[in-house]
């Protein structure tokens, strides 16, 4: 007998204890504050910012238009870039909205397709596999174009015509690769649960459906959270793709603002400004993901 067998056999499940979500969230928040309050980092940032503002003002003077500093221009365009045109849905807020809805749809569909991939029914299993592979291995941009032109511009329900906004079609298109990738995550998580869990549940008289939903999937959730969050970040970063299809997202509006200003020196700061928003939004999520992954590997 293997002398280590009692250790190996003691458990092969990485996570046994339930998360204390509130405690973990509090720890996270403290970490982020710690990051932002790191004194040396803050000092360097302030110095760079001050120097940049000085150069910015001086440069505007030289250009002969002191009210057109880069800072002032950024401030001027920020409401448009962030919230979109007045009385219209757009801007960075639209990017986030699209990411939310596409993620929700992708998660919902991905769960079912993933479960389909382990179905005892061969047809369902094959169809789920094909769906997964199809959307997992297609370029997102191609999918976007495809669904932009494939889906109708208007639908008629009960004699009334409704326009389908471009961003909704784009959201649907983006949810498909998320669906496919989550399907793989779900399949992998289900397969990672030791077969002993199935067998012991079977021997207690549980049906296959009960075993899946009440015993296997609850154990999968913890394993799926880090990759799920990771895919959310990737999706959020990919939302500016929809600007190519003429949706008024943050990217499109930044381009509009630049076109209106027609000054090439604004190019770098304006895009940097947009990138900063994405960074500020995504970085905490990335930190959470790392924390979850660490917890996941340590807990035995």
């Amino acid at each position, binding site marked *: 007998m293997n002398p280590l*067998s*009692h250790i190996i*056999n*003691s*458990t*092969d*499940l990485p*996570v*046994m*204890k*339930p998360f204390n979500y509130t405690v973990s969230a509090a720890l996270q928040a403290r970490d982020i504050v710690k990051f932002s309050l790191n004194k040396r980092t803050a000092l360097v940032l302030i110095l760079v910012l001050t120097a940049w503002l000085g150069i910015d003002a001086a440069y505007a003077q030289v250009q002969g238009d002191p009210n057109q500093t880069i800072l002032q221009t950024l401030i001027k365009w920020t409401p448009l870039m962030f919230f979109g045109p007045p009385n219209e849905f757009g801007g960075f807020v639209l990017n986030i909205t699209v990411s939310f809805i596409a993620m929700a749809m992708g998660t919902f569909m991905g769960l079912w397709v993933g479960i389909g991939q382990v179905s005892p029914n061969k047809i369902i299993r094959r169809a789920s596999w094909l769906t997964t592979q199809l959307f997992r291995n297609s370029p997102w941009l191609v999918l976007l174009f495809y669904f932009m032109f494939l889906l109708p511009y208007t639908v008629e329900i009960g004699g009334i015509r409704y326009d389908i906004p471009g961003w909704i079609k784009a959201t649907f298109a983006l949810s498909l690769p998320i669906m496919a990738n989550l399907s793989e995550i779900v399949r992998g998580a289900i397969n990672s649960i*030791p077969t*002993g*869990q199935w*067998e*012991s*549940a*079977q*021997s*207690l*008289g*549980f*049906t296959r459906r*009960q075993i899946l939903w*009440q*015993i296997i999937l*609850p*154990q999968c959730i913890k394993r799926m959270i880090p990759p799920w969050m990771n895919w959310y970040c990737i999706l959020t970063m990919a939302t500016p793709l929809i600007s190519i299809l003429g949706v008024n997202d943050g990217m499109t509006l930044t381009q509009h603002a630049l076109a209106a200003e027609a000054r090439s020196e604004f190019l770098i700061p304006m895009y940097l400004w947009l990138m900063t928003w994405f960074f500020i939004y995504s970085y905490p999520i990335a930190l959470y993901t790392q924390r979850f992954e660490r917890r996941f590997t340590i*807990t*035995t």
Partner: protein
Amino acid sequence: MNTSTWDSAQPIVSLKDVHKSFGDLEVLKGITFDVMKGEVICIIGPSGSGKSTLIRCINALNDIQSGSIKFQGQEVHDPELDKLELRKKVGMVFQQYNLFPHKTALENVMMAPIKVLKQNQEEAEKMARALIRKVRLVGKEDSYPGELSGGQQQRVAIARSLAMSPHIMLFDEITAALDPETVKEVLVTIKELAAEGMTCILVTHEMGFAKELADHIYFTDNGVIVEHGPPNEFFNKAKDPRTKEFLSQIL
């Protein structure tokens, strides 16, 4: 499940010429034996001799290629059989405990009665607490499996099976993954079960335990029963050279 043709004077489990293969590999090559109600049966033999496969066939976790397995007169090897009904009556405990790690000890014990037997919460909890007491784990009700030792987990697994009020218990090398000290606490639990008249089929390497507790011992090797008999006869008057060799190595 039709049990009207069966009465307790007949074997509760009856195997006749059971053959089982995994692909080309034949692991059971014609196993025949009967188990009477209240008997304790120990199946021993070298690794890979098909012991675990054998008892996993009794609750239809594994199917068989030919032969017959009857539980309370009902053919287990029948495609029409309601396996869920069978498994409600046949408890099984595994080497790896296989507790549900996302549930506490108490919830592990309560889960099947509530979800499978549709008992109400209070009734199931009352019974689960009694079973936890029976396996001497009072105070561990709210612990998760990961917080319990191997022996404790195994006792929760036994309680979990007993919660279904099975007619028979199958134990698949349940002490093989435990430390020598914790083996005892699990065996004590089984001893009590046997004393209460529970029919038990054990696959085990615990020879001392088999000697003390078994009504009948079966020695399997290479998919067949090589020798069997009551413990005294089996351990002292083994005739087959394979049995003798095995016993000389293990004792």
